[in-house]
């Protein structure tokens, strides 16, 4: 089946399932607000929602850029300094597996309610898929290609730009599929934990006011952002690797 059609079917059927659930469970609207109520909120409070969306996006993107810069720098260093990779493995394992809410709490104690701890959380969530994939991708360069380059007496720079980076590119894009969406989820969770602004903070506010309709509006908005991020990566991937699908005939 056509992928686009499947998306359309999902968008149409989701509210139907939603309405059916309300009908069957007879849930009151302060627990499970109907779609039209949520849509009303999204329209009437759109200025407020957009303001907080912007805050979340800025946090997510800042953290994501930092994560990319650090992860790519480390991957490249690992390629040329294997001892550094050996030294870094225990650190990455520990940092990756410490629950990030605890790190977040420590960051808030130290840094207070500033953008910094939120950005750090986004970095922690998105950094590892990029590091792992780019490190693997750089090493995936074809050995016969590297041999040929060596017999041509090419420089390390040429080998990197012409062979290693093109080999790593599909891995790097695959990392974006996970990590770019993760940056938005990470930002929302960070705001949910401690911030006064952003979509995550709106969820907390909606909860404390027993405004399920607002929580639902934010949920839909945050999901749309994350899905949009994923689809954007897919589109870039499709464009970059368009030569793969070009047919002979």
């Amino acid at each position, binding site marked *: 089946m056509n992928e686009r059609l499947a998306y359309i079917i999902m968008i149409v059927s989701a509210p139907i399932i939603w309405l059916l659930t309300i009908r069957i469970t007879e849930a009151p609207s302060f627990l499970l607000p109907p779609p039209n109520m949520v849509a009303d909120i999204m329209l009437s409070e759109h200025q407020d929602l957009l303001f907080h969306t912007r805050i979340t996006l800025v946090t997510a993107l800042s953290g994501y850029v930092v994560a990319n810069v650090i992860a790519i720098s480390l991957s490249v260093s690992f390629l040329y300094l294997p001892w550094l990779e050996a030294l870094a493995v225990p650190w990455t394992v520990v940092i990756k597996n410490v629950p990030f809410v605890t790190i977040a709490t420590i960051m808030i104690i130290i840094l207070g309610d500033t953008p910094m701890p939120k950005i750090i959380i986004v970095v922690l969530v998105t950094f590892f898929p990029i590091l792992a994939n780019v490190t693997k991708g750089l090493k995936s360069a074809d050995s016969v290609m590297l041999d*040929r380059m060596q017999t041509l*007496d*090419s420089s390390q720079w040429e080998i990197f730009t012409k062979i290693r980076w093109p080999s790593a590119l599909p891995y790097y894009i695959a990392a974006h599929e996970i990590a770019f969406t993760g940056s938005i989820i990470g930002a929302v969770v960070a705001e949910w934990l401690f911030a006064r602004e952003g979509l995550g903070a709106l969820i907390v506010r909606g909860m404390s006011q027993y405004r399920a309709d607002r929580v639902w509006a934010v949920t839909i908005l945050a999901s749309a952002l994350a899905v949009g991020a994923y689809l954007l990566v897919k589109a870039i991937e499709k464009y970059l690797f368009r030569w793969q699908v070009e047919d*002979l005939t």
Partner: protein
Amino acid sequence: MTIEFSRVSKQFGEVEALDDVSLTIDDGEFVTLIGPSGCGKTTMLRIAAGLEEPSAGSVAVNGDTPRNACREHQIGVAFQRPALLASRTALRNVGMTLEITGRDGALSPGDLLTDFGLGEFHHHYPHQLSGGMQQRVNIAAALVHDPAILLLDEPFGALDELTRESMGEWLGGVLSRSSKTVIFVTHSVEEATILSDRVVVLSARPGRISEVIEIGLPRPRSRAFRTDDNFLREVARVRSSLYRAVELSN
């Protein structure tokens, strides 16, 4: 350019890949290395390419080290698996060699591909080409900077029998128009016989030269030649020598 192996030995850990191998390849000569697997033929070729260092002995390319020959861009290599980038077209894959070596004295990638029968495939990506076409692009990439030495490691090993024959014929034609010194590694006795001036038969464990056979056949050697009695006699000579080498290996 000449290539001279002087008492070359090579160990990989416990394995003795080559043991005291000496061989001189003359300027413009086509020499094939053949032998059972593990006889060190690929290792010999890789040492000549400067990709491996001998454990003992030395290899000289025109009196200099293989690494220096690489620096002067005198060596072209092609292996069984084509060294092509999936994201570059045939033309840009061939052109990449020149991006690295510079264009001094080089051939034109486009002309070379057209000459290799790939005139309509300049802008095709490797995955859009058949195995034989990919290997032609691969060899074009190895030849485009016009090196004096060509090192080929089973370039047709992954192709079907008929494609393999026509590729061998094609390579013979291409090289007859140049004066390159060639080391060619193969498993095929027919391929070795039809292409070579000399066939070096190696035995395995440790890799040693078992016999060197001069192929006394006139050139050019076309497809019709494959059914010629003289050719078949030479094939039989090489094959019996190979069998002797296999026996020596066990």
